[in-house]
């Protein structure tokens, strides 16, 4: 199966979602900047959102058996709200961290090391 030759279907969306997820995960694992990690998180979440939206889209998946209705879109909306809240909290933490340590390098933030 060649994605490039196929008409646009669910697999393409899934591929985009997977790329976004992996890019986000790698970003989270490699960035030392706290803001970079936040961005990675946004990528991971939105990769998942792409999947949700794709699975629930009636254009991409037809037939009564496969239909999910509006569930996917709703969950995607929740995830966006969640991401916004999370970003707010995380940015506040980052700001505080910066106030205390004059840096936002997460490798320096090992106060909770056991």
């Amino acid at each position, binding site marked *: 199966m060649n994605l490039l030759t196929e008409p646009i279907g669910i697999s393409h969306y899934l591929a985009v979602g997977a790329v976004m997820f992996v890019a986000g995960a790698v970003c*989270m*694992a*490699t960035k030392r900047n706290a803001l970079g990690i936040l961005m990675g998180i946004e990528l991971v979440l939105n990769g998942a959102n792409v999947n949700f939206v794709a699975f629930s889209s009636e254009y991409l998946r037809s037939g009564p058996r496969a239909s999910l209705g509006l569930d996917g879109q709703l969950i995607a909306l929740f995830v966006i709200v969640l991401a916004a809240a999370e970003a707010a909290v995380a940015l506040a933490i980052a700001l505080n961290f910066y106030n205390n340590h004059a840096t936002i390098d*997460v*490798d320096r*933030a090992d106060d909770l*090391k*056991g």
Partner: protein
Amino acid sequence: MDLASTLPTLLGAAWLLPLASFVIVWLFGPRLGHAGKHAGYVATGAILGSFVLALIALLSWTGKHGVFVEAHHDESHAGAPTAPPRSESSPSKSPVQFRLVAAAAEGEHADYAHYDHEGKAYYTGDWYTLAKFGKLQLTIGYYIDSLTVVMFCMVTLIASCIHFYAQGYMHDELHDVEDHEVTLSDGHHLHRRGRYHRFFQYLSLFCFSMLGVVLSGNMAMTFVFWELVGVCSYFLIGFYIERKSASTAANKAFIVNRVGDFGMLIGMMALWSSLGTFNFGDMAVEDAASGETRSQAGIFSQVRPGPSHELVVPEGMKQAAAATGSEDTERCGYWLLVIAGVGIFCGCVGKSAQFPLHTWLPDAMEGPTPVSALVHSATMVAAGVYLAGRFYPVFAPEALLVIAVIGCITLFIAATIAITAVDIKRVLAYSTVSQLGYMMFALGVGGWVAGMMHLVTHAFFKSLLFMCSGSVIHAVHTNDMTKMGGLRKKMPWTAYTMLVGCLAIAGAGIPFLVGFSGYYSKDAIIAQAIAYKEVNPLWGVTLFVAAGGAATTAFYMFRLWYMTFSGQPRDAHKYDHAHESPKVMYYPLVVLSVFAIAVAWPITIVGDAAEGSPLVHLLNQAVPDGVGSMEGAVRGTLAASVAIPSEHASHVDAIHSAATMLAFSTALGGFLLATLFYGWKYLDPAEVRNQFPQVYRFLWNKWWFDELYDALFVKPAHLLAAVAAWLDKNVLDRIIDGSAKVTLVASRYDDWFDRLFVDGLVNWFGRWTYGVGLAFRRLQTGSVRQYAMFVVLGTVVLFFLLSLFLGTAVGR
């Protein structure tokens, strides 16, 4: 007025007044006036009120029943019963709690109809039921006959005099007291607060208890008040409790009385278990089932049923005898009757200080003198004689023989000891013991009236004598007669009232004409003894002992008087400081000496034609059924040789004049001997003492009774205690020590086990948890990126696992 309800009310109130005083003084004693001074007024007022009530009771009694009864009549008892004199009220008419219980009024009850041909009325009933256990009923009730009324008057009158006297005598207790007889460990004398109010508190309780004994309508109540009397005497004898001698004497009085009470309990059990009732007289009881009032036979009418009141073995005792499997139930039941009588008498022996339990009474002199006066006359010892008199119907001739012999021994022993005593109160104490012996002896030989009369007359002159001696002690501050002498000039009131007492106790009088009160009562006793000797030649020796006792009595009483009041002062210092007592002390003496002279005077002196004194006639009204009414003598069943003569037998002229002469001559002999020794000093007592040193030592040491009891009971008890202590120390302590050691070893092992296993397990668990925690600690690197990697890897692993296990299900 209905006597059946007024008498119990009057006497009950007279009985409860001292109780009220006791409660008031007990609660508010120290706050009544300065240092409790008004406590004396409260107590005196109460007892005086009692006396007035008792006097009203006496007057209403004589108003109803008269003073005189036909004492000497020999009408046939088999004749048709005439209407008894006290049939005025039927039980239904009188209030429930004041029932007149007149068995005779219900003449149709022929079984135990109570024909009082001599007018011997009594009133009995219950006020209050204390407890009821099946058949056993403990009640507060009354049994009132003329004896009760006379005793009430006597007790309250003497107690009133003593209360007045005590207000003067106990004056020292109003402020702080320094007791010179108690030396503390630091060498100082004891200094304590005065206990004036407490003295009167106990005095009131004492009177209340004694009146309770007199009023009591059943055996159980008698016993309760009997013990109350005992405990009051304990309090009062031990009033100076800090003195070793006083506390010992109080203990002795109490313990010796317990010995007698043990016998009394046996007697009570014998009576109750066989007769099923504690009541003296016949009671009207309301039948719960039918609501009818019927008469329940009391102890007396069970023992002496029928019109002739002869002593029979009651049905209950026969049944009790049969229950033991005895073949001769009559004889066995009779034994039970004798045991019951002797048992009750045992209580009287303890309380009235008869041989062999007489040793407590002289020691009881440790109490303040007013207490001695009260104990020795109106209360305590009188209770014993009173109970013996009250219980007279139950005594079988054998029991009476025991009583007579005990009384005889007592009167002789005590009289001889009194000869050598030099402590003025001890002389009087032994004299009391001796006179109590007389009373018991009189009862034992069948002279009920004689014994009871002597109880009353003796109460008057003995309280008089004691209070006189107290007055002397108050003046010279010593009990020792060898330090007195010549006090007549210093304290005439005391001296001459005491002389009256001495004459009364010696039985002085002009033969066949007139005499002091003791003259009449002692004559009656001697006369009865003569009558007894005539029917019992075997026991005739008792007469001579009684006569000898009378002579000795006269001797030691006048010895006392001469040593105290006549001659030259032996101790000039004490003589100089002597003074007559205050009026509050010697006025009662005068009152009592009037009674000591005149209480037994025959009414003829006042101008009445009737023979004999009102006291005798009043007592005659209460003579127990079957005692005074018998023709000839009553013989014993077990010991047929014992015969109890009727009291009328002693009223024969021949016996009576012989008795008068005998009593008079012995008393005169004793008096003259005392005068020879101590009045005129023709003979020197010291010489006689040196002549018979053994006899003197024997008497001086009180027949060695204390030493004997010491050796017989106290020493063995001490030995037993020593053995018990040894056992405690060497056996019990070892066992306890051993068990302690075993416990120690066991606990050591337990400790080891605890440490090794219990603690080990807990510690191991703790360590394990700690190790696990350490191991997991390494995961917490603190690196956010690493955490993110864990999350991602975890997700990937989860994804793989899910697709591995659920993949097929989804794929299908």
